[in-house]
């Protein structure tokens, strides 16, 4: 079972202030910390689990700047065999379709049975790259996948629907699955493995190697702005003791 996992390095914005930069189209990134996208971490773990069970290889692919190599190295430390970073000045402005086209050109000639992506990138929140890539590669796919059982070239897939309902279906390999969080328990790499991965080579591919003249954008961010707020909470002010007293009174009187 040879598996390709698409990994995106994203800023952690859940805990941090997100500010718009001077172009008005992007965010200020220099004070943010970056890490592997949450659902990609589960996709990577699923690939490693499948490899441990069925044999084969795990190749991880990321489109992004040199800093992505930290993320890819961590993937190698956890058990991926090969890492590919795709980068080019011509790829600075992209969209979901462009990313899928770029990844396709990098993996189309590889020998694989399965492609895994995350189900959503927490920065753009598009849930687009997986299904787009599958269509470009002409393989079947499913998103929000919460269980994978491989059986003689057919995968029994669990897909999460609204309200906690699960849909079960069979998909023929080769296929692409966009993995939902919670499918497994992502591992941590050991210090020794991290040290060993530091010496591994990461293949870097550019537009030239991929035979891409320029990326065709289908959508473009025109501007970023703060969401208009219909209603904002009344913020209770004071020390923890003061706000707790106020809130306790509100709670017990409502």
């Amino acid at each position, binding site marked *: 079972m040879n598996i390709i996992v698409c990994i995106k390095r994203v800023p952690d914005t859940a805990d941090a202030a997100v500010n718009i930069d001077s172009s008005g189209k992007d965010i200020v990134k220099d004070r943010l910390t970056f890490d592997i996208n949450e659902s990609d971490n589960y996709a990577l773990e699923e690939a490693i689990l499948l490899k441990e069970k069925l044999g084969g290889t795990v190749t991880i692919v990321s489109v992004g700047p040199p800093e992505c190599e930290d993320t890819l190295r961590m993937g190698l430390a956890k058990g991926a065999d090969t890492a590919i970073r795709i980068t080019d000045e011509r790829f600075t402005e992209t969209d979901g379709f462009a990313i899928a086209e770029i990844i396709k050109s990098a993996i189309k000639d590889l020998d694989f049975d399965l492609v895994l992506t995350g189900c959503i990138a927490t920065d753009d929140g598009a849930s687009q790259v997986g299904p787009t890539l599958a269509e470009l590669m002409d393989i079947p796919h499913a998103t929000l996948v919460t269980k994978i059982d491989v059986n003689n070239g057919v995968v029994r897939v669990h897909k999460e629907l609204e309200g*906690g309902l699960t849909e079960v279906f069979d998909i023929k390999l080769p296929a692409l699955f966009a993995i939902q969080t919670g499918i497994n328990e992502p591992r941590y790499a050991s210090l020794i493995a991290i040290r060993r991965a530091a010496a591994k080579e990461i293949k870097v591919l550019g537009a030239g190697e991929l035979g891409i003249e320029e990326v065709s954008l289908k959508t473009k961010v025109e501007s970023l702005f703060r969401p208009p707020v219909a209603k904002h909470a009344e913020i209770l002010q004071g020390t923890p003791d003061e706000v707790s007293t106020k809130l306790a009174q509100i709670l017990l009187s409502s």
Partner: protein
Amino acid sequence: MKKIFSLVEHRRGEIPDVSYELLTKGRELAKQENGEFTALVLGHNVKEFAEKIKKEADRVFVVDKEFLKEPNAEAYQIVLSDILKKESPFLTLIGHTALGMDLASSLATSLNIPIATDCVGIDIEDTGKMPVLLVTRQPYNGKLNAKVSFAAGSQFMITVRQGAFTSEQGNLSGKIIDIASPIEKEPDYRKFIEYIEAVVGAVDITQAEVVVAVGRGIKEKENMSLIEELANSLGGVVACSRPIVDADWLPKDRQVGSSGKIVKPKLYIAIGISGAFQHIMGMKNADTIVAINKDPNAPIFNEADYGIVDDLFKVVPVLKNKIKELKAS
């Protein structure tokens, strides 16, 4: 004349709200553009559905086939791509649902149509020459909005967030049109097997009057007892956001949100929860919402009635004691 299409989803006999929202939005845009609005219904024995939504559209396209009984994205793609090729609508709207996520990006790619996903706003602006389509999206988990434009073209596709638009009943008298399917059975590469129902646990959070919900801000499993004690002091139940279930700190039936439970308690306290829309969808109708979060810009504060911007580890233990004191006095 501009054609606008909306896909009407249905599963196990039910049409989700988002489909009505798409019908309303599609109809509205078609009216604005002097266009024609078509609702798409795929399924088996769906006459009843078609009759039900006749009022919502100028035309209701019905593809009725046994193999379309369950919504199967790969089968839907083959059928819809055939229809869209023949009809070339200016705009096709699909819900950003579990089905829509599988279907739309792949369908748009196969037809070489630009697509924007999970949109919360759609505007067609008339600039004189060509009408310009702009959508609003919410990157960074709702912390920012983005206006997004499309590459020049004559056809576009948009997936729409559930609850982003309101729904109103239409007063059209749509013509129901039977459309032939290009295939007679589902493709052999994706075969439906069964549904598995959500697990039912011991505590039903949908019935509780007070729900104390905890999110990733709680950091460690060991800290969960803080939340339990607070819930106990208020006579409420503990619920949570998705990462807490993903980490196995609470069972799935405690998860609030689009892929969990919808709750409408008298009081909902969100602690260390950022307020991603998938979570908001599950609790926005609570009578009173309180949020405790150290990030003043957390989207949860746009839903809450009362907020405390501070470290939950400083506030929650004190709050629990104050409640006990007040109750005793």
